[in-house]
């Protein structure tokens, strides 16, 4: 493929700019640029053929090649960047003006001198450019025409941190063109800058309407408003977009910033009418009821002087704790209260639809912590129709044992629950782990595993009750050992 000479292009563009930069010809110039754009968008493919130093196939195989070592290249001003990214098959050349003060300019001296340039040197050069960026440009560039630039050129200047002016973009069409050009640059910083300009120069309804069809710009705008803390405007925007659930969540989020619990509760109450999804509405309702309840409990428990509060002084307030923590708290301090009270476990369980499994786990933890094994027992006791009590659990008994052990339950308690484990293998390993000798011995006996029993005997203290028990079993002639 033939390669266009970038210099030619540059010269052509620049000289043209030069000819049209008189103030009174503003309009003509921009019209010309406009029509040039139109023409270009029509014959895009051909254009690319001409200046194809970036012809690339996104789908995989290279179509052309990129020249990556172009020196002082200023490629064509035309651009195909208005196209959406995913659709591009060929990346068209995107224009760049002469280098501003990008970092690369610092390295210019490097290969010339061979060594590394002293930094203050290169920087002083840069800084001159920073303060007087126009001084080093060709004459045509130096003129004060920042206000004459096309949307595309403007956003490019913005990207490079060079002087620019947005004032001339007054018609809605121009403003939107500017925005679309910024989006085509992929530079979030420039997109935000344009949005800030549009925010101040457009009626918000109009801006919202236009953003609706511009997803990338919209997301930048939402994020900008979030960061600026412009909650009100954000809510209006989301509402205008019909994103009511997002809007509701956004408003709900505000409660996090409210320190005072009373005000927080009132705020949550006001959230109840927001258009949440059905599930979330239930959760927010829970949140409000929970805090309301916590405030009541906290007020009375703060000055409570019951025995349990003296024995186990509260370490922290219950305010703003999760539901399960609240349940645990109530199982700890308010166990056995009648269902009518706000602080009773039964009431909390019912109000917040806590599953049986979850309830048992929490209550077990709290009662075991208090070492009230009787309460623990009664959690699992069920009576059948004949009046016999039987232990049942929605969680595996091996988990129950774990929790009990973590709370330093005595061996007699542990043993009882280890015995309830269905799976013999699990039962045995738990029994071994927690040294429930009786169970180990009985299990080996039931398994008719003589060898293991002999091994186990060796671990026991001589003449202890367990030891004698093993002896007894081993000498029992009626058992048919499997080994």
């Amino acid at each position, binding site marked *: 493929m033939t390669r266009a000479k970038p210099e030619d292009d540059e010269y052509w563009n620049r000289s043209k700019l030069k000819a049209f930069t008189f103030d009174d010809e503003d309009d003509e110039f921009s019209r010309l640029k406009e029509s040039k754009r139109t023409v270009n968008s029509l014959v895009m493919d051909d254009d690319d053929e001409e200046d194809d130093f970036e012809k690339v196939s996104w789908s995989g195989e290279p179509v052309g090649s990129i020249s990556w070592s172009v020196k002082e290249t200023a490629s064509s001003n035309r651009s195909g960047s208005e196209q959406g990214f995913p659709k591009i098959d060929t*990346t068209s050349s995107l224009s760049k003006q002469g*280098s501003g003060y990008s970092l690369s300019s*610092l390295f210019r001296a490097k290969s010339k001198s061979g060594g590394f340039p002293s930094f203050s040197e290169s920087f002083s050069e840069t800084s001159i450019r920073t303060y007087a960026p126009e001084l080093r440009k060709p004459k045509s560039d130096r003129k004060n025409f920042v206000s004459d630039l096309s949307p595309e050129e403007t956003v490019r200047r913005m990207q490079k941190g060079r002087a620019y002016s947005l004032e001339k973009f007054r018609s809605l069409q121009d403003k939107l063109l500017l925005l679309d050009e910024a989006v085509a640059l*992929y530079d979030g910083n420039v*997109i*935000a800058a344009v949005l800030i300009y549009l925010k101040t120069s457009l009626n918000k309804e109009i801006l919202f309407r236009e953003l609706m069809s511009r997803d990338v710009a919209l*997301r930048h705008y939402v*994020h900008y408003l979030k960061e600026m803390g412009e909650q009100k405007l954000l809510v209006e925007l989301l509402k205008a977009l019909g994103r009511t659930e997002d809007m509701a969540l956004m408003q709900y989020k505000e409660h996090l910033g409210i320190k005072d619990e009373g005000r927080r509760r009132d705020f949550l109450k006001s959230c109840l009418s927001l258009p949440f999804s059905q*599930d979330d509405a239930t959760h927010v309702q829970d949140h409000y009821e929970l805090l309301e309840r916590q405030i009541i409990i906290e007020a009375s428990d703060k000055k409570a002087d019951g025995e349990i509060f003296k024995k186990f002084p509260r370490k922290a307030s219950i305010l703003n704790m*999760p539901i399960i923590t609240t349940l645990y708290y109530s199982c700890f301090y308010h166990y056995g209260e009648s269902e009518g009270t706000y602080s009773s476990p039964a009431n909390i369980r019912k109000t917040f639809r806590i599953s049986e499994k979850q309830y048992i786990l929490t209550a077990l933890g709290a009662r075991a912590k208090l070492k009230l094994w009787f309460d623990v027992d009664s959690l699992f006791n069920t009576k059948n129709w004949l009046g016999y009590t039987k232990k049942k659990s929605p969680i595996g008994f091996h988990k129950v044992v774990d929790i009990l052990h973590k709370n330093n339950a005595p061996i007699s308690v542990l043993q009882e629950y280890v015995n309830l484990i269905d799976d013999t293998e699990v039962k045995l390993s738990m029994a071994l782990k927690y040294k429930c000798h009786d169970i180990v011995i009985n299990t080996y006996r039931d398994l008719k595993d003589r060898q293991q029993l002999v091994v186990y005997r060796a671990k026991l203290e001589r003449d202890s009750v367990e030891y004698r028990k093993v002896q007894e079993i081993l000498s029992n002639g009626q058992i048919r050992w499997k080994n």
Partner: protein
Amino acid sequence: MFVCRMKENGRKLCFVRASNMSVVKQALTIAKPLPEKGEEVYIVVKSGIVLHMAQTERRDAPELPDFSLLKRIARDQLIFLLEQLPGRKDLFIDADLMSPLDRIANVTILKQHEVDKLYKVELKPIVSISDQLCFLIRPRIQTVKWISDLVNSDKAAGRFRKYKIIFTPQKFYACETVLEEQGVYGYITTDEWNFYILPLDDDILSLELPEFFRDNFLEGDQRWVSTGGGALHLLQSVYGSFSKVYGIGRCAKMVYETWREQMEDGDLRTKQPEFAKVFLIDRDVDFITPLCSQVVYEGLVDDIFRIKCGSVEFGPDVTSSDKSIKVMLNSQDKVFNEIRNEHFSNVFGFLSQKAKNLQTAYDKRRGMDIQQMKAFVADELKGLKQEHRLLSLHIGACESMMKKKTKQDFQELLKTEHSLLEGFEIRECITCIEEHINRQVSMIESLRLLCLLSLTENGLLSKDYRSLKAQYLQSYGIDHLLTFANLRQLGVLVEQQPGETLTVMESKVGKLVNDKTVGKLTDAFSSLAKKSNFRALSKRLALVPKSGDEYDLRVPRDMAYIFSGAYIPLSCKLIEQVLERDGWTGLEEVTRMLNGHEFAVTAGGNSSEARTKTDAQRIILVMFLGGCTYSEISALRFLGKERGCRFIVLTTAITSSARLLEALLDNHA
């Protein structure tokens, strides 16, 4: 020189005997590489020393470029900027810039440039009495607002000071607008410190921008895209141009584009490149890998102790003293360097062997005469002591980690995780996760497993989603409603949606039959729509080895070793495949399942001719947009050894399951 090869228990051994080391070096670099792939090499030099080269040095690994240059560039630029505000000044530094700053400049350098006092930016009123204030910050609106307030209160109090803000790595218009709106524009000078890249190690470069992840992938804000391009441009300016670029992901494409434009802009000399290939990958191409528990030493240390900017703080439980020690973890630490990529189960054995060797080395002292002792003290003792110190630290760390990881919970969670990856006994997995939530065990762990469940299963069934979400909110706070909204937005924890075609079908059916039937039909449809991309991807790329196969973690056979042989990281597998095929040809189905956005670009001109077998051709830069984990780095190091190449990782930040999820939490103001 004498070479002897043998096979033993499936290990390929290669013994090389030579008169001296230079001969051996020669042998290792001759055209037909010796040793062969997969061999363990033992070198026996005349003096009788056996050097175990493991599999690491099996081919002459190409030399990596010297990245310390980047530090110098950054430091020099900072000094220049400080000099722009002559005279004594107080410096306020953003909290998350302190560690990176530490790596490139120290307090002495700052003092030399008339920095008087150093403060951390805390967004609170300040106590400084200096009449020049300099702020070194990330371009964040909140910080700029704070500075504006400060200036305004000074003005109100009739106090005159000079202010300068140095934004790094760049300034944003939004920040400047704040200055303008607050009426302080003009009172403050602003500058940019283009500190794009911090080298964390020989092969790890970081942008130190953890917010890249949330900003880009959750908020959809592209503010860091050109920063990514700038980083690549910087590398190219210093180390030469690339011949080939591959990538996948929306952000990767944009970063490439901005980079390409900057390339055209600057003048680059065609110099001999120091690396030649670049691979860009978006984090959202693979969320599964960073959400898996790390079990390779370096990753595990990060998961448990959190490595910050290449340094870790070991607490009293590790140091077995009453104070904490900060340690740099990089290739300079000889002990760490040997274990960092090892599966945790191997590390203990290695360390104890090392301890024995150390003992032997110390014991040499016995029976030495004065001269020998003198030499010993001069040449060896310092090294031994250093090794001793490091060894005891890592042993301490191992112990501490063992204690945490041998708990019942961890084993069970790991089992659940592996089942999820394998797609095996999903019901049991859900029960296990549920119980974890019910018991209010680690909030992040629960979330991690929920996300893994959703990602591997392509979303949760509606009833599971609702029930698990409700239980999660009960256990960890209803505020997490917002977290769930974020996770859904990002697509890492979602409810299964019946496909669009199905919805159309339903509505048609709906007209014909009554509501109840429609409900039933929907159920049936959604179970049909449950076809998961991960499962298909995993099958297509063979990510999950068949269960039942024994996996010897001491002799890893593929990258799956970093997850105990249970899963080959998708991200790294993609990189391997693309490099192997020199493009995406043949991976069409895979990219379709990953939502496309793949590309492969070759540079034109003479660089293609220069594509000979130079070292540079075997150095590959992998850029992770949105962060990468230490496990992925280990996997790439393994891949490099397998293929006789080296990978350099350029990441926006080091991430981990906890960091990734914490970035998505929204339960605080």
